Structure formats: C-alpha cells, structure tokens
C-alpha cells in the first residue's frame, strides 16, 4: 500500500485540476474494475458489478484533490501572486517549497513586515528565482495551480508523515479494497469514486452519487485526533484503528451503517474506534443527501496535523479501514 500511496501522493491534483492524478488512479484501478470512466466534473468512477441480481449498490468515495493555490498574477520583478484553493492557512504553509503543475519549483514567503498570525495570502508571493516578468512568464502561467511539495517520510514502525495524505490515503484504501474484492464474487455492485473538489466544499461527490444512486455509501477520509498536546478533547487517536464516523460538522451518519461497521469490526477482529468530529465536513454529507438519498457513513484514518506538510498517520489504521470497508461491501445490511 505504501508504494502505491507514495506514487499517487507525488502526482499533483489541486481541487478543480485533478486530471493528472486521476489518470494515474484510473490506470491503477482498471485491472480490478469492470468499467472505468470519468464524469463531466472529472470524478473517476470505477465499477465492480455485483454477482447477485438482487444485490445492492454500494458507493465508496475518497477525494483525489488536494489543497493548493492558483497563480493569479505575475509581478514586474518576476514574483508570483497566488490565491488559496481549499482550507490553507499561512502559518502552516509559509517558507515551504512549492511545486507548480507545470513542473516549476519555488518557495512561498510573505511580503516583508507581515504579522504571520493575521496574514492573508494576498500578502504572500512565490519566489521562483526569476528576475523579470518575462522570465517568470516562461516558467509559470496565470491560472496554473501549485501546492506545497509532496513528501512522505517513514517515522517509527508503521507511522508516516507527509503530504498530501489528505486524501490520497483514502484513494489508496479504495485501491486496496478493489484489489481485495476483485474475483471474490461480491453479491453487491460496488462503485469506487475518486472525487474532485472535496477541499472546496464537497462539490464533486454530489453529482457522482446522483448518477450512481447508491443504496449505501461510505466515504474514506482522514479525521482529526485528540491525542496531541492542547487538542480539543476527542476520543480518537492515531494507532487505535479505523475510525467509524458517527458525526462530523456536516453529517450525522446513518445509525444502521454505524452499527453495521461496529458489528463487522468486532466479528472480524478489526481494530476500530468511534469518531465524532466537531468541525469539518466530508463527502459523506453529499452522498447522503443527493437525489433519492442513501444510507451513508464513513471510515476515517486518524491523522495529526491535517492540511500541513507533515500529516501524520499509522499505516495499520489505514489497513483496518480497507479491511472493514471490504467487509462492509460484502454485507452492507445490518441484520437485526
């Protein structure tokens, strides 16, 4: 899983400009899918047809986009002005190396004399080493996207840190599930969706679920933890297993789905924990509330320092999500 994860983390896909990473993901999932396509907004939709005629439709979704920037202006002296896409804050972004979608590298810095705590990106720029507007225009074009340079380092054991873990890790989990289920004659039809534009307000997953009309839907994403100094008390920790989402800022998961995931985890001895996230939303809400609606839930990988360049997770938690997700696809219905 790590090799694949590393590969997809190193291909850029800032929200709305996901094409390169989607192409890679399409190639990786094709061997396990009956059908792979891309929709109008760029969502990658792969399908494994169910073996049973009376089978249900299950939609699994992880977003492939990442937070980043777009070039808005090139200054006379070659500096690049940018605007953020997604929930970026200057204090965890400044003085980092950035990569442009066209390949150019640069560093992101604030205008001189700025108070970093109360700074907006209008007062920041990217230095690409160019000295004139002309030179810069040859290296970067207006409208091009960029992101803090990708990176993944192994810490102790199965713990890793880097970016963009949010949510390429979810995509890697989808690939793992697809591999696991391929050839298993799952009675239910399973759709794997790598969604676009989650970081700007979950704009991609709604249209995808409108098209798929799932009975059940699961999102795979990262979630915050309460296991670091000064954190809001939250019973969710790195290393304690797959987090079964009960609620986040945008959704209350279907009670039946939550119960089913808990039951399966206990039966299969998959390590899990409960997740109630106070802020933030996921594609779960859009899958739940689009069109005819679906019974929706989510499995999360507890991750520290989300949206920074050092998003930290434990691979075992991700594996637990993949195992539990696969088990759910085989039998999504809760028997009472």
């Amino acid at each position, binding site marked *: 899983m790590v090799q694949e994860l590393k590969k997809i983390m190193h291909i850029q896909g800032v929200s*709305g400009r996901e094409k390169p990473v989607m192409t890679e993901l399409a190639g990786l999932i094709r061997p396990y899918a009956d059908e792979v396509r891309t929709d109008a907004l760029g969502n990658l939709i792969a399908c494994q047809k169910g073996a049973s005629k009376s089978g249900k439709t299950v939609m699994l979704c992880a977003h492939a986009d990442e937070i980043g920037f777009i070039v808005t202006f090139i200054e006379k002296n070659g500096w690049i002005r940018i605007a953020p896409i997604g929930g970026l804050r200057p204090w965890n972004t400044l003085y980092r190396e950035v990569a442009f979608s066209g390949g150019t590298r640069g560093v992101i810095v604030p205008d001189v004399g700025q108070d970093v705590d109360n700074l907006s990106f209008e007062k920041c720029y990217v230095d690409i080493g160019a000295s004139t507007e002309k030179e810069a225009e040859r290296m970067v074009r207006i409208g091009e996207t960029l992101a803090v340079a990708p990176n993944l380092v192994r810490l102790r054991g199965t713990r890793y840190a880097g970016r963009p873990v949010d949510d390429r890790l979810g995509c890697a989990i989808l690939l793992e599930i697809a591999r696991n289920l391929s050839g298993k004659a799952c009675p239910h039809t399973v759709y794997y969706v790598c969604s676009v534009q989650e970081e700007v307000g979950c*704009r991609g997953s709604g249209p995808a679920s409108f098209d798929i009309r799932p009975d059940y839907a699961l999102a795979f994403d990262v979630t915050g933890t309460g296991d670091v100094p000064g954190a809001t008390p939250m019973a969710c920790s790195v290393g304690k297993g797959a987090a079964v989402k009960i609620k986040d800022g945008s959704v209350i998961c279907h009670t039946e789905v939550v119960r089913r995931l808990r039951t399966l985890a206990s039966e299969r001895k998959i390590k899990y924990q409960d997740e109630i996230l106070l802020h933030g939303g996921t594609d779960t809400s859009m899958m739940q509330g689009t069109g005819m609606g679906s019974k929706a839930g989510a499995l999360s990988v507890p991750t520290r320092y989300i949206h920074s360049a050092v998003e930290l997770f434990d691979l075992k938690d991700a594996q637990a999500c993949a195992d539990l997700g696969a088990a759910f696809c085989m039998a999504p219905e809760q028997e009472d």
Partner: protein
Amino acid sequence: MDNLDLLKELCETFGPSGWEDPVKEKILEELGPLSRLVREDRAGNLILTVSGTDHSRKVMVSAHMDEVGFMVSGIEDGYLKFRTVGGIDPRVLCGRRVQILHDGRYVNGVIGSKAVHHQTEEERSQATKVKDMYIDIGSFEEGEDIPAAMCDYGTFLSEFVRFGEEDRMIKAKAIDDRLGCAILIELARELAKNHTMLPYDLYICFTRCEEIGYSGATVAASVIQPDIAVVLESTAVGDLAGTEDHARVAETGAGGVLSLVDRSTIYDEDLIRFALATGEKHGIPVQVKKWVSGGNDAGHIHKSGRGVRCLALSAPARYLHSPSTVICAQDYFCMRDLLSHMLQDLQISDFETR
C-alpha cells in the same frame, strides 16, 4: 450592428430578485416572433430552445434577469422601512432615488436618513445602517391611502448614461446582469436570422434570483441537464487609480473576463482554453480574471444533476450592485461576438467524458 438601445431598455427595466416579471415581458417583447420558442419553467426562468442537428448534445447559455433591490418591510408614520434584496453596500443607499412597484404602479421615492447636522460625532464617522434608513415617497394626509404596502418590491432609479472620451463608458443600474440578457437576445436573433444549424441543442436561459443566492439557474440546469454551460455575468474589477497591479482583477475596455476560480466554482480548464483560443482566432479581445472573488449561477449549475462543465464570461464592471455601475461599451460587443463565435466553433466531442 453595434447598438446599445437594447441594453439601455433592459437596464432601465424594473426587476429585483423575486419580481422579475417586467424584465420577462421586456425580453419576450424584444424576442418578437422568437418568443414562441420560449417556455417558462416551474421556477419562473425563461428558456428558449434552439434545436440543432444532434439532440443528444446540449449546451446551456444563461444570464440572470434579476437585480439587487429592496422589499418594504413596514410603514411607520408614512415612511417605508425596507430590507435589501441581494448584497448592497449600505453606503450606496443613503440619499438615492428609488422606485417601488405598488399594485402595478411605479412610485418614486428617496432614501432618507438623519441629516448630517443632526448626527453625533460617532454617527458621522460611520455608515448608516439599513435599519436606520427609510424610503420617503411623499407625505400623506391622515386617512389618505398610501401607495405602498409591506412586501412591495423596489429598485434603484438610475438612468442609462454614456460618458467619457467618445462616450466609451456606460453608467446604469442593473448592468449586472441585463448585459447578459441583452447579449442572449442578440444571439437568438442572430441565430434565427442566419438560420444557423448548430450541431447540438442550445438552451438560452434567462434565470431568476441569482442575487439572493437561491438561483433559478439551479432549476434550469437540472431540467436541461446540459453537457456544457456558459454563464454571462459581470464581475467587479478594481482598475482604479492607486490600486496595486496585482489587485486590479481585470481591466475595463480589454474585453470579456474569463474566471479561473471564484468563491463558488472552479471553472473547466478546457473551456477556458477554448474561449481564449476562439478570441485569438477571431481577433476578439478577452482576458483572464487575475483575482479570486465573487460567485455566480455557475456555482449551482456545475453541481446540478450529474455535473456540468462551466465557463463564466463576464463584463469587467466598476461599482457593482450600486445605482451607478460603470462598464466600457466595447466590452459588451466583445462578449457578444466571442460568445457567438464560441458557439459556432464548438466541437462538443472535444468535451465528451470518457
């Protein structure tokens, strides 16, 4: 033919979000015999269908009919209390002329507030709040019927004026988005006149309620389910003396503006490229918006149904949502011509999903 009469007529028509009827009537009148191709959907949008050779392909072009305005929320001692409809800066309200539509009749008024002489030191340094303003439509005798009532709608009263060097600039209310409506009417007329057969069905949509964010366009798009949508709009620019280069957004007089990203939409990359190429091919100026701000109907359209690829083509406009919005006349013609060429050059198979 380069003529601004249509734009003038439309801008001077009354149509705040929620009461677009006079604009609808005007549009139908201007479309003349073409109006038989127009239907009104359940949300009150007007949709004109131009049938092409392949009915399985659909393109939607839209502009919103509504403008920012007011609603009367109560009458106190003959003065009308009001709320704004859509985002209006309270600083452009004080002292303005307005029109209230009451029982089919337009009633003139001015927005009053405490005279500067009566204001305290603190009040003078701050913008007056909307709840401290009122609309004065004249005085009435005791027992006399007041020609206004709670729930009446209003707009700014502001003439269409051409000014500047060779009258290149225009000042009017409601340029946002009657300009888009005017371009769409011209487009419909042109297609009909030339008997153009497009290789797809074209839906020309005049939508409601963009300014309040509820957006009739949501409904239009979910009914049509187009492959591609082009939204005609106006976008706030800051090309004023003293503004830093990177904060000017776009320049008036330099052609229509293509948005890359705004608060509600990330626009389709391929469509942006296509629009720029079309401009270049036909020698029509077009520019890219160098700022991230605002939002429009595309925010709803692109998420409707199974998803829609969207492009926004906007007029660079100064002082948006005020009674004196200013644009450059040339930009109107550039947008009109670019849209027309884009629709004729469009190879829809280039935008197929895989």
